[in-house]
């Protein structure tokens, strides 16, 4: 029973969440750089934030037996502060080659302004230079048009659709995204975006090719267990096991695995010398009884995903 949550803002979550996610079978998470609920006023706070994504948060996750990866980028909301955006663009290259950075993201449109367009393009260019996958945030408002525009710009900038994840899809956008060869992310929110029941129907209708789900849990009302809960619901509703595996685990691994930074071996067979695995307990004894976890079990879709 293994899950990947490929879009979750763990910096905003508690240790209780990490414990529950681990218990529910989440083995790895991807934390996209985004905004903090209120706008930052200087590049220094971006530096500290991005550093925490490759540093402190990764360490924190490791203490709960979860592997943490991230994407690096300037989000669409803060792209509207041009002076800040210019400064952030200057520092992004310092993070893109860090270990565990699996994509440029989340980038794209919010209000679909000219500045958003400018920095979306600039970051697509950066992704091409660094040969990276891109995670695209699609807007809440004017969603369908914004999604199509996001794809148009990505293609115009020379991105291969196979290296672009279009995130936060719904029933209205999924067909176009799949038809054009992009990856389709679905966010399960308790109140907005997709509900679990609707997600089951989408997988029933479209299958599991290039479709995968995430919680996008953050500082708002959201559910860090959305992926395991929805996986369980899919099974209950008769979705085939291989489709559940693909949408809750395998497809995220395939698309972000293109980065060379996101590999099943990291959680299946962690290396003893890996600093982030030291806290699994059995690599370094410090006089206390180590916590020894069972070896990761093969994918078994147990009933007790969550209580």
């Amino acid at each position, binding site marked *: 029973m293994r899950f990947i949550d490929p879009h979750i803002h763990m910096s905003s979550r508690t240790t209780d969440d990490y414990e529950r996610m681990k218990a529910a079978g989440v083995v790895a998470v991807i934390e996209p750089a985004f905004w903090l609920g209120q706008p930052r006023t200087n590049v220094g706070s971006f530096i500290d934030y991005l550093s925490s994504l490759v540093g402190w948060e990764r360490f924190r996750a490791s203490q709960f037996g979860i592997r943490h990866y991230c994407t690096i980028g300037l989000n669409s909301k803060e792209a509207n502060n041009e002076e800040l955006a210019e400064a952030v663009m200057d520092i992004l290259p310092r993070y893109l080659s860090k270990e565990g950075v699996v994509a440029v993201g989340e980038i794209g449109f919010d209000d679909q302004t000219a500045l958003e367009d400018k920095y979306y393009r600039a970051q697509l260019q950066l992704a091409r230079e660094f040969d990276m996958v891109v995670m695209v945030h699609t807007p809440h408002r004017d969603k369908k048009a914004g999604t199509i525009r996001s794809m148009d710009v990505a293609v115009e900038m020379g991105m291969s659709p196979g290296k672009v994840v279009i995130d936060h899809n719904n029933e209205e956008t999924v067909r176009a995204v799949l038809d054009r060869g992009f990856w389709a992310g679905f966010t399960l929110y308790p109140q907005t975006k997709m509900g679990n029941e609707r997600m089951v129907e989408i997988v029933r209708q479209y299958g599991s090719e290039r479709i995968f789900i995430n919680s996008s849990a953050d500082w708002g009302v959201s559910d860090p267990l959305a992926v395991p809960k929805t996986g369980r619901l899919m099974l209950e509703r008769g979705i085939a096991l291989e489709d559940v595996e693909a949408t809750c685990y395998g497809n995220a691994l395939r698309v972000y695995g293109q980065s060379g930074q996101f590999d099943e071996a990291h959680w299946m067979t962690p290396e003893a*010398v*890996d600093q982030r695995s030291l806290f699994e307990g059995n690599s370094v004894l410090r006089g206390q009884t180590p916590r020894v976890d069972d070896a990761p079990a093969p994918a078994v879709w147990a009933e007790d995903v969550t209580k």
Partner: protein
Amino acid sequence: MNTVVNAFAVNAASTPAVVLQQWLLRRLGPAAGLWLEEALASLGGGGSDRDLYRCVSLVSRKLGKAALELDAAERAAACVARPDWDPSSWTVDQAARILLLLVTGPEGGRFASRLDQLCATADIDELVAFYRGLPLYPEPSRHRARAAEGVRSNMKVVFEAVVHRNPYPAEQLADEAWNQMVLKALFVGSALHPIVGLDRRSNAELARMLGDYAHERWAARRTISPELWRCVGPFAVGPLLEDFSRVLETGTAAERAAAVLALRNATDADAHGLLDRHAAFRDVVAARGVDWTTVLAFN
């Protein structure tokens, strides 16, 4: 490549940069070795900030993170190159990142400011490498604030990169900072025995702080690391001796063995009297050859 290294080497045969480069090139495949040599050439004597940041970040992607697993001759070479330097647990990425820094030149001010920049945007493994490299950097006294920052870290691996198997703290930290470091090691559950210079830097104030800490733990009915007593032993008089008496009478086997080891270094006559009262146990500890690296497993 030798020109790069020789540019600042006083004795090219034995500097840390020279031996690091030798160790790496012995272990890396042709493509990785070539990348490293090109990176060293571009940074030799300085290089641009952008090249430095990029090369240092790319190390783990280009060279991997295998353990160096130095052989006996290489470990001996480390000691010659830099007294008390212990890279026995270093990995390829750590060695390469530190080597890249070292070839940028011996000017301490510029080195320190670039190190600050690197640390500001570092990932965890980079931080570990940068702090493990502390004993090798030019103008050692310039890096005290950096070392203190590492000791302050909430990430135990980063904290231990400064504190364990690293001669820098014992050589450079003042007593106040040293004492806080030892106390924090106990506080976060880090072992004390890998701390270089632990016995040499023991002091009466540290012994008092550790005694207070032991009482705090006892009051809260929490366990105490047997290693705590190591730094108290040489200063065991009066109330601290009473603490030892309590440990010898009521402690776990490992705590009692640690008390015996600690009291061997006591200077007070009463301390040896206390040890004599536990002569049978003292002799078991001696007979079994217990030392500070094995005392935690004593039972």
